[in-house]
């Protein structure tokens, strides 16, 4: 690049030239560098997850230098007084050493753990953004599935890490997993003894979890992140509606130099936030919990937040549903939560395909939906969030009871009821709210914003001046697809298949209640109809200021 100019190129230019002549990087960089990304805060949530992952790898590598995944027994001889001489596993002892005796060990542990919580949280929020804006539609359905797998892998990475310190809390968590595995009819006990190398807790499991935690799961995450980002490059990024933004283009800034600078800076901001939190707030004080011993269980034993919804499912499952088949008891207290959570995950993974089946929409979508413009999807999302949220809150019934001075039993029953009716209420309220917002949008497009300015016309009539919305706003309000229910029609054989009937029924649920976007004709009519000269001045001024 630099050698075309007359000026002598400096060190950077020479280096670039040297590399380009040998690796032809210029072409690649040009291709990548000219990739356009739109600018919006909600597009940066996935980035936060990515940066948290980088921080996890960095801090985790540090921890591997000092952590020893062995369950052999030792007597602790480190500097934490209330555990001096206590019998414990080497895994726990080395975790304590990292916390108390290795320079920078505690901050690294805390960075690692806070980053893990943030990683899964940011990934979850990113998924919600993608869901509510319809970014999973064609051509991005497969990338939704990859993202979903990343979220599940995040949970797996978190859980295997949570179990490594071999303190009382992590041991209790493992014991619950062991119980759930053993609850699976027929194959459960065999899986459990295979996993733990005999009866729980055994002497193997920490080393096995360590292999999973530092090799297999992170390797899968790295591969999935690679695929995820490649697909973003292939599909290009989505954008919100606006003037000139269509399903055939992307409006934004180029990767280089704008986003390289922005993203680089953003990485350090995320790192800074995590470091600041880690330096000031304790996370997982393993020294409080003591070495793992199968007999004690401390009050307030909970998993990290991303496993919380599964713990909640276990807590909320009613007792007394067990079934006996040929003398074998099927423990429904374990099976119900297991099946419900797996079905929930399957629905999340399959949602893009379900919606596509309902709409029969084969076109590509690169312009995002505002959540209100697809009321049923948004309502389904709200119901799902409520369902997940109640399960999540269900994991802390005991803390809710003590901290708000309520009865534990009543909190539990309230949660059970809420788990069933909460999503229904959320669905209904959200759908109605979306439709009302759409009506308000229509009103705004047709009649403009109420200014509160009352004008008296020469002949005595009073009118309130409505200010027409500007062009950017207008695009936001009218640029969406209005789906209509699909009727069940006979196919070429003259039959109406069950699938078609089902689709037609679901389609009716989706699109029976709908607010059509303002059409061009409606818009022109509304503005030609009652637009006093004084008012129609306004939009021209606005447009000018935009162009300037």
């Amino acid at each position, binding site marked *: 690049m630099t050698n075309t100019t007359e000026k002598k190129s400096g060190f950077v230019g020479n280096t670039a030239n040297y590399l380009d002549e040998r690796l032809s990087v210029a072409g690649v960089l040009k291709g990548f560098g000219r990739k356009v990304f739109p*600018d*919006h*805060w*909600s*597009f*940066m*949530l996935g980035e*936060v997850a990515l940066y948290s992952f980088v921080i996890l790898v960095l801090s985790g590598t540090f921890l591997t230098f000092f952590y020893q995944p062995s369950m052999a027994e030792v007597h602790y001889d480190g500097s934490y*007084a*209330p555990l*001096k*001489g*206590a019998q414990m596993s080497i895994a726990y002892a080395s975790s304590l050493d990292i*916390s108390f005796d290795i320079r920078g060990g*505690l901050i690294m542990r*805390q960075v690692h*753990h*806070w980053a893990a*919580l*943030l990683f899964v*949280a*940011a990934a979850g929020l990113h998924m919600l953004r993608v869901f509510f804006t319809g970014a999973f539609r064609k051509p991005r359905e497969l990338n939704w599935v990859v993202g979903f797998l990343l979220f599940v892998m995040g949970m797996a990475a978190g859980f295997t890490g949570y179990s490594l310190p071999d303190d*009382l*809390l992590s041991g209790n968590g493992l014991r619950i997993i062991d119980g759930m595995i053993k609850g699976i009819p027929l194959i459960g006990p065999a899986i459990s003894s295979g996993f733990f190398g005999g009866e729980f807790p055994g002497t193997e499991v920490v080393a096995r979890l360590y292999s999973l935690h530092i090799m297999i799961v992170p390797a899968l995450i790295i591969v999935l992140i690679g695929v995820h980002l490649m697909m973003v490059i292939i599909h290009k990024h989505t954008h919100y509606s606006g003037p000139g933004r269509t399903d055939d283009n992307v409006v934004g800034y180029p990767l280089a130099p704008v986003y390289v600078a922005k993203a680089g*800076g*953003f990485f350090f901001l*995320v790192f800074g*936030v*995590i470091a600041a*939190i880690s330096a000031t*707030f*304790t*996370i*997982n*004080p393993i*020294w*409080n919990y*003591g070495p793992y*011993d199968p*007999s*004690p*269980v*401390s*009050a*307030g*034993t*909970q*998993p*990290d*937040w991303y496993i*919380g919804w599964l713990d909640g499912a276990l807590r909320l499952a009613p007792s007394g549903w067990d079934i006996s088949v040929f003398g074998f008891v099927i423990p429904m207290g374990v099976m119900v939560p297991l099946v419900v959570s797996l079905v929930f995950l399957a629905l999340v993974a399959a949602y893009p395909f379900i919606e596509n089946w309902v709409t029969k929409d084969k076109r590509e979508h690169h312009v995002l939906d505002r959540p209100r413009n697809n009321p049923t999807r948004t309502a389904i999302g709200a119901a799902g969030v409520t369902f997940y949220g109640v399960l999540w809150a269900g994991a802390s*019934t*005991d*803390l809710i*009871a*003590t901290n708000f*001075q309520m*009865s*534990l*039993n009543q909190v539990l029953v309230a949660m059970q009821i809420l788990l069933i009716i909460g999503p229904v209420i959320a669905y209904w309220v959200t759908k109605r709210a979306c439709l009302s917002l759409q009506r308000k949008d229509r009103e705004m497009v047709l009649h403009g914003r109420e200014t509160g300015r009352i004008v008296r016309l020469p002949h005595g009539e009073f009118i309130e001046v409505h200010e027409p919305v500007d062009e950017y706003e207008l695009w936001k309000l009218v640029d969406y697809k209005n789906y209509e229910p699909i009727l069940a029609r006979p196919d070429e054989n003259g039959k109406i298949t069950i699938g078609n009937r089902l689709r037609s029924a679901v389609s009716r649920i989706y699109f029976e209640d709908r607010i059509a976007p303002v059409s061009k004709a409606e818009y022109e009519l509304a503005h030609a109809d009652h637009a006093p000269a004084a008012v129609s001045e306004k939009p021209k001024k606005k447009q000018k200021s935009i162009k300037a």
Partner: protein
Amino acid sequence: MNSAKPMRRRPWAAGIVVFLGLILSGGGYAAATNVVISEVGSPEQVEEGRKLFLANCASCHGTNGEGAIGGPSLIGVGAASVDFQVGTGRMPGQGSGPQLYKKPVQFTEEQISAMAAYVASLAPGPAIPDEEYLRGDGDPTHGGELFRINCAMCHNAVGAGGALTEGKFAPALGGVTPKHTYEAMVTGPQNMPVFNDSNLTPEDKKDIITYLMYIEENDSVGGFELGSIGPVAEGLFTWIFGLGFIIAITVWLGAKSN
């Protein structure tokens, strides 16, 4: 025939065996649970205590401490029980509910001792512990282990408190004096079980108190503790403050420059 029947086959033999068994086990139990008997205070102090008792406690516990509709009998609960209940403000109780809360103490040290002396004079019971067990110079490792095995399932691993059924709860242990901790262990107030001296020896109790004093006096090395209630607080913190702050940054970065 009859005379050849061994003694142990006689009809009354079983009765005698059961009787002896009951005496041995019951007596042994009584001997083992025989806690330090309260020293009875001076007659003036007991009399002073009786007056206070009649004025403040008798409506629920009966005029002779024999118990009434509102409250249990206090015969045999000992001075330790009075010192704990009145000394932490739980007694005299206000209202009824699943469990009584701590509240500001209603009586002076002297008045509490007088009432304790009076109740101790009714029947032998656990005494107020000696200072030697309350200094916190025991073995914190042993205390911590005992605490995790015996106390943490209700009070949480660092005594942050926890829930019991039907609105009952195990209170947080922060700020509780060693004396009251010891008394709670020997008397088992409200929903707490009794940890008598054969269950946890006075030395064991001393170790537990040492552990509690250690964690109370030493701040967490990791920074603010978020209530020491574990992963729930950490998760909420991540979502509200961690992610909240990061979203603020994304909005800032995504803002259009004017």
